């Protein structure tokens, strides 16, 4: 009856890119399916203990083979759970559930993929850019990457060769334009023809909300990856609710873990009575 199970994983490496940012590589058994970009895993160190709950992290890299998969997760330490992950060492055992959720989908007529990454939102979009290069359509990849400062532009080396164009903004001006990435995108938005371009974004909620305002008057289609705190990752706990607009205009809650994490930006509601202040990238406490 069982078709899926929690996979035992082994840590291959867990590299500190900065004091707060880590790149975790894991080896997983062959049962781990090939993930779609934007999908995530629930991960926790094996053996239980505190913290109790697994943490959702979107997939940054994946290489499959006959003997199993190698996956990469990019994360920032923001709380007890991610700090515990940061302490993992090579050969440590982890428990992995996944790949979970719905990822980014490239529409049939899209020949320009515009990626907007805010901070750690770069993780799922890098995997997406990598896969786009291997599709038949091979759309042109234009990327906007923003972060607080130069040191927070994590994963730039891997992202950069995947893009035909890369636009960078930092809030302190230490690299690229000074300001928010959404301002840089707004200034160049006319360069993207809605008939052939589609936008894919992942980043903090204020970035997604700004994007939502920018795109409201346009016909540019945009998919975004959303984050909420999760307990189970498989649709049962109903903790990761996010507000969406139904066709009739009514508000309804969807589960980020299995109805998302990728949603159409125009379906998301921003004035719902919730504290949408957190990050929607791949950071979770």
């Amino acid at each position, binding site marked *: 009856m069982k078709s899926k199970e929690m996979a035992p994983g082994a840590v291959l490496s867990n590299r500190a890119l900065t004091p707060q940012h880590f790149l975790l590589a894991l080896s997983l058994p062959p049962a781990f399916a090939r993930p779609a970009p934007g999908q995530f895993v629930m991960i926790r160190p094996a053996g239980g203990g505190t913290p109790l709950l697994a943490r959702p992290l979107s997939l940054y890299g994946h290489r499959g083979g006959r003997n199993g998969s190698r996956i990469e997760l990019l994360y920032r330490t923001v709380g007890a759970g991610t700090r515990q992950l940061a302490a993992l060492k090579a050969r440590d055992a982890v428990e992995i559930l996944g790949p979970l959720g719905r990822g980014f989908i490239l529409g049939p007529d899209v020949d320009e993929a515009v990626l907007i990454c805010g901070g750690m939102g770069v993780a799922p979009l890098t995997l997406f850019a990598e896969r786009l290069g291997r599709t038949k359509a091979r759309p042109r990849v234009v990327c906007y990457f923003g972060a607080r400062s130069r040191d927070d532009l994590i994963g730039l080396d891997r992202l950069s060769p995947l893009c035909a164009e890369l636009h960078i903004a930092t809030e302190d001006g230490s690299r690229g334009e000074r300001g928010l990435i959404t301002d840089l995108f707004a200034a160049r938005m006319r360069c993207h023809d809605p008939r052939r371009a589609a936008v894919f974004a992942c980043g903090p909620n204020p970035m997604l909300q700004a994007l939502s305002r920018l795109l409201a008057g346009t016909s540019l289609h945009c998919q975004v990856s959303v984050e909420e705190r999760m307990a*189970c990752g498989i*649709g*049962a706990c109903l903790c990761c*609710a996010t507000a969406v607009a139904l066709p009739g205009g009514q508000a309804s809650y969807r589960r980020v873990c299995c109805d998302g994490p990728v949603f159409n930006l125009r379906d998301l509601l921003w004035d719902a009575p919730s504290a949408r202040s*957190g990050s929607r990238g791949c950071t979770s406490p």
Partner: protein
Amino acid sequence: MKPSKPIDLGVRIGGLVLKNPVMTASGTFGYGEEFAPYSDLNRLGAVIVKGLSLEPRGGNPPPRMMETPSGMLNAVGLQNIGVRTFIREKLPFLRRFDCAIIANIYGETPEEYERVAGLLSRASGVDALEVNISCPNVRRGGIAFGAQPDAAADVTRRVKTAAAALPVMVKLTPNVTDIAGIARAVEEAGADAISLINTLTGMSVDVEKRIPHLANVTGGLSGPAIRPVALRMVWQAVQAVSIPVVGVGGIMTARDALEFLIVGARAVQVGTANFIRPAVTMEIIDGIAAYLARHGCGSVTEIIGSLKTPGAEPAGGGERT
């Protein structure tokens, strides 16, 4: 681990016969289908589905969850698809499995409880009802009925009538001063069993932003943090009533489940642990069987209520029937 001789794990909860004493707690197992890829539902004693109301409920705004030391706070607010959609769309799937199906029900008024119970009693495939008079995360109904013996008895009586032949289990809240009084009131009103505990009301604050971690401000605490409280209340309830008591609260392992059985719980519900390991109930069932084998017990009923309390009155004294 396979036991060397066949061990009878079966228990009776009123008119309900379960193949083993392990159920999934309401709200932690969805409608069952979410867990079917990860866990063999055929092996479960019972699946208790997410609380059902007469009309669909949207639930509370996010954030709805915060992890706390050895536990989690949730304020989902009884989001559910409504009893009619459950019967039409979810029940047929669950019926394919060889496990008891228990529908957890919720109402904003006593009349709503009655109507939900009535609809489920006429739907084929539901084996029992669990009455939620203990949800701390909704403004109306829920805990409002569970904190007062009279109100709890009234809802129980109405559901029992509306449920016709279905066994009725009433889920109690720990957020009361006298659990024995509530348990007795519910028993006298005709409940076939009681289950406890629902979550403990709690709160958590983001000190940097000085805002509550939950949009609902308060939430229900679950997980191993509440297990000693749950165990104490189950032990007290077992002594207060003669109907079967089902133990719930922070059960993560077979040892945890055994604690509840030993103090007199006829069965247990596994909740938060499902979120962490979706197949945890399988491990718990196997672990109980292994324990019984190790202790030379032929039946799980031999350990139910077998607590030895030095110097005090025997707590349970074996399974009551």
